[in-house]
């Protein structure tokens, strides 16, 4: 099969805003996303994944979006950072990937 360049946006942020971020991603035209549970440490302290969090909503998720359009990828990364990262902790970055079926992304 032929392989094609595409972009991956990764967003690591608080679980509590996952639905809002998902909406933002869909509005940017991406066709899908993948969510993984995550914990970690950043400028705002340690978060854990499987301790009994009395306030469990605050643990992290990692959201990955593959998209064929570098523009859409940039827009998602920029928008997420602008809209959410003043008040919620989180980071975002981009990677280059190779995909098989360009029509799918």
């Amino acid at each position, binding site marked *: 099969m032929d392989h094609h360049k595409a972009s991956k946006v990764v967003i690591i942020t608080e679980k509590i805003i996952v639905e809002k971020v998902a909406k933002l991603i869909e509005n940017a035209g991406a066709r899908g996303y993948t969510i993984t549970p995550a914990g970690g440490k950043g400028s705002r302290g340690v978060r854990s994944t499987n301790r*009994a969090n*009395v306030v469990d909503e605050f643990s992290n998720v990692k959201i990955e979006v593959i998209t064929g359009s570098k523009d859409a990828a940039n827009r998602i990364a920029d928008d997420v950072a602008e809209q959410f990262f003043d008040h919620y902790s989180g980071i975002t970055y981009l990677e280059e990937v190779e995909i098989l079926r360009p029509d799918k992304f």
Partner: protein
Amino acid sequence: MDLLLDFFGRLITQFQSPALAFLIGGMLLAACGSKLQIPDAIYKFCVFMLLMRIGLQGGLEIRQADLGEMLLPAVIAFVVGCAIVLVGRFTLARLPGVRTEDGIATAGLFGAVSASTLAAAMVMLEEQEVGFEAWVPALYPFMDIPALILAILLANMYFARTEGGKRARVHAGAIILDSLRGSALSALLLGLLLGLLTNTERVFEGFYDPLFRGFLSILMLTMGMEAWTRLSELRRVAHWYVVYGAFAPLVHGLIAFGLGTIAHYMTGFSPGGVVLLAVMAGSSSDISGPPTLRAAIPSANPSSYIGASTSIGTPVAIAIGIPLYIALAEAVFGL
């Protein structure tokens, strides 16, 4: 003098209650660096069991209740919930070093209600054989929801003033719905409904009721561990949160106790009901309050309000508040 001695005697007996013991045990474990962890699934299950039990019991007993009697206590619950937030807004939120929105969010959390604290108080009343009306746990939302809404409203009024911009509308309806849909209130209300309408006596008596105490003990342990673990977050915020967390629960509880006592003399509200009203006022929301505030006042720093509530407010509300109100009730109403 004699009365005072008697009061302290009663107070001390309360401290040996297993609910408190497990709470303090949890703090001890965390303080000693124990690696014991209660899995999140078990924590969630404990919460579900308690709320379903409280709901079912309420529903089963409410069948015979005279709901007219509920009116005055419900009004008091509403008033107390709002009063706590207003007081917090004009004291804590104005203190030096306290960001206004953080103070408002904290007041909102302390105005809202903790189901776990309520459950602990119910067990302790049952141990003392102090009765209360079946509908008392149903007062929960009458205090919880108005407090959260008022806090969000005050925060938006503050933003509108400071940022000069147009005032963001607060969608009270959306917040009410959001609260009712939260896992705590929806389990409680489902339990009420099931208890009221269906034949759930056997599953209540054979499962939810007998296991109640046990799951509460595990919940208290978890909350104790959490309280200690989150203490470190308080280091990063103003000291006033510690002061507020230590005193506000008792002040709030005593205000509610006072108003409840008036209701006792006016409409015969039971002493146990007065205690539970005080406990609700003194507690601060641990399950659904934090995410609601986080979503509605995103600029407020969660370390401040969750720290103040989880690490200081809740232990004080349970370990000092509950015994205090019970001892008071024994002294005042001569149980």
